[in-house]
């Protein structure tokens, strides 16, 4: 039957380096080739660069490999600048509405200067506002150039009624995407963390009135919930690395671990926390105190489920690279995708949704947006080379 994949230096080369950057000194050229490829697929190449820089190990990168790291770091630096600018524009657009805005995920890491901000690519900006203010917020944003996307009636309903956010808004000129949430999990999900509590304990951001980020414990729980409910584990390792950095950073404060446990129970998020602590400590060596690990087991599922989740997550949380797969990895990812949707939406809502998404929407989208499909056409790409945004 399925067994935990064996630890092998080749397969876990990149992970080993993440856990212990010092190993960089001992790698040979061929191993560096594999590290670059695994890291790139995990979207952690820049992250690895910064991690080596922090430990003064950049000189151990062989000459041929250096540019790959530096180029990746340039991209992420640009993303950080981009997020900072975007948040400023959002702040200015919503100033007159006068509601508290909580920055989530990447935007929060960047604006609060937290470790997961470095070496990361950020695509959307996520914010949370009180549910009652959604209409005003949407109106204010549209006045300042943001436009609705996902015009399909079904998608609109999916987001507004079943999920926890407005359909994504796109800025007309900058082409950046903004997700406006009113809670962190869909109302249709089985877990119901109270957004009001999250807002009450949010921490204000320096220099921007009425803009907040989650309290440390809530930030960790949000990240854990997002990862262990999210189906797209192509970025699983990257999100796990974010979690690991948050834990290492926040645990420097006294009493953090206890507060984290208590808060998880209070917010009914003990299950995602169990997974978070289990997999960060096992895969990335996060220094979670033993006592805390034991206590977190109160969030553990039944033995059967726990065992199954191990099989799934140990595979799905590796880099999405051929060298890191065994024959069960594809299945693992697929099962987790279904599970993620199951956790977000009750079953009777789930099946029609998946069906609709797989078979009807692509056809409709192709009618409306011929060029904007998931797989870009190479010839078009090379023909219309004027870049994405002329900046």
């Amino acid at each position, binding site marked *: 039957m399925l067994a935990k994949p064996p630890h092998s230096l080749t397969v876990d080369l990149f992970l080993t380096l993440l856990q212990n950057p010092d190993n960089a000194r001992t790698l040979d050229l061929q191993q560096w080739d594999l590290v670059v490829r695994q890291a790139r697929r995990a979207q952690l190449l820049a992250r690895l660069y910064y991690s080596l820089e922090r430990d003064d190990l950049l000189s151990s990168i062989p000459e041929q490999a250096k540019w790959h790291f530096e180029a990746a770091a340039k991209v992420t630096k*640009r993303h950080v*600048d*981009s997020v*900072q*600018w975007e948040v400023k524009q959002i702040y200015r657009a919503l100033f007159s509405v006068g509601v508290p805005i909580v920055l989530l995920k990447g935007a929060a890491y960047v604006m609060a200067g937290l470790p997961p901000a470095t070496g990361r690519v950020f695509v959307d900006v996520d914010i949370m506002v009180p549910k009652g203010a959604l209409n005003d917020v949407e109106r204010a944003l549209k006045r300042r150039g943001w436009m609705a996307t996902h015009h399909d009636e079904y998608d609109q309903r999916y987001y507004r009624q079943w999920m926890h956010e407005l359909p994504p808004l796109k800025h007309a000129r*900058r082409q950046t995407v903004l997700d406006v949430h009113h809670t962190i999990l869909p109302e249709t999900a089985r877990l119901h963390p109270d957004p009001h509590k999250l807002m009450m304990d949010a921490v204000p951001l320096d220099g921007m009135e009425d803009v907040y980020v989650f309290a440390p414990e809530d930030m960790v729980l949000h990240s854990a919930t997002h990862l262990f409910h999210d189906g797209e584990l192509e970025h699983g390792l990257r999100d796990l690395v974010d979690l690991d950095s948050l834990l290492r950073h926040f645990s420097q404060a006294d009493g953090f671990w206890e507060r984290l446990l208590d808060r998880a129970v209070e917010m009914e998020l003990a299950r995602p926390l169990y997974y978070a602590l289990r997999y960060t400590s096992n895969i990335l060596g996060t220094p979670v105190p033993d006592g805390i690990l034991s206590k977190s087991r109160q969030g553990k599922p039944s033995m059967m489920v726990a065992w199954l989740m191990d099989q799934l997550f140990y595979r799905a949380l590796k880099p999405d690279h051929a060298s890191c797969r065994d024959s069960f990895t594809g299945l693992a990812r697929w099962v987790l995708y279904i599970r993620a949707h199951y956790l977000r939406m009750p079953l009777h809502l789930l099946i029609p949704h998946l069906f609709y998404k797989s078979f009807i929407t692509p056809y409709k989208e192709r009618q409306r947006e011929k060029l904007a499909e998931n797989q870009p056409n190479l010839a078009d790409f090379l023909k219309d080379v004027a870049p994405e945004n002329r*900046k």
Partner: protein
Amino acid sequence: MGLEGREIEQPSPQRYWQISPDTELFLAHWDNEEEAVVYQPGSGDTYLINDIARRVIIILQESSASAVDIYDRIGASFGALPRQEIIAQLENLLSGLLKVGLVRFHYR
């Protein structure tokens, strides 16, 4: 072209213009050319601007100024146009720069 149908802004209180805070602007200009290029690090935007816009930006890079201040500095080079007309045109140009986020204003 005339003033018909267009209101001239009566700047009271006066708008004082400045480069968008937190970012400097990079200018590129080549001798005798009518157009220049400006780059804004914060947004990463690059624009092709005309000569007047360039000179306005150079003035604002030194310190904030109103349209009247700018007129006092460079108004003479616009030839025989009436003062009010030139100031109105400058306000117009500055509004354009405002729209793309290169400048801001405050009231004094």
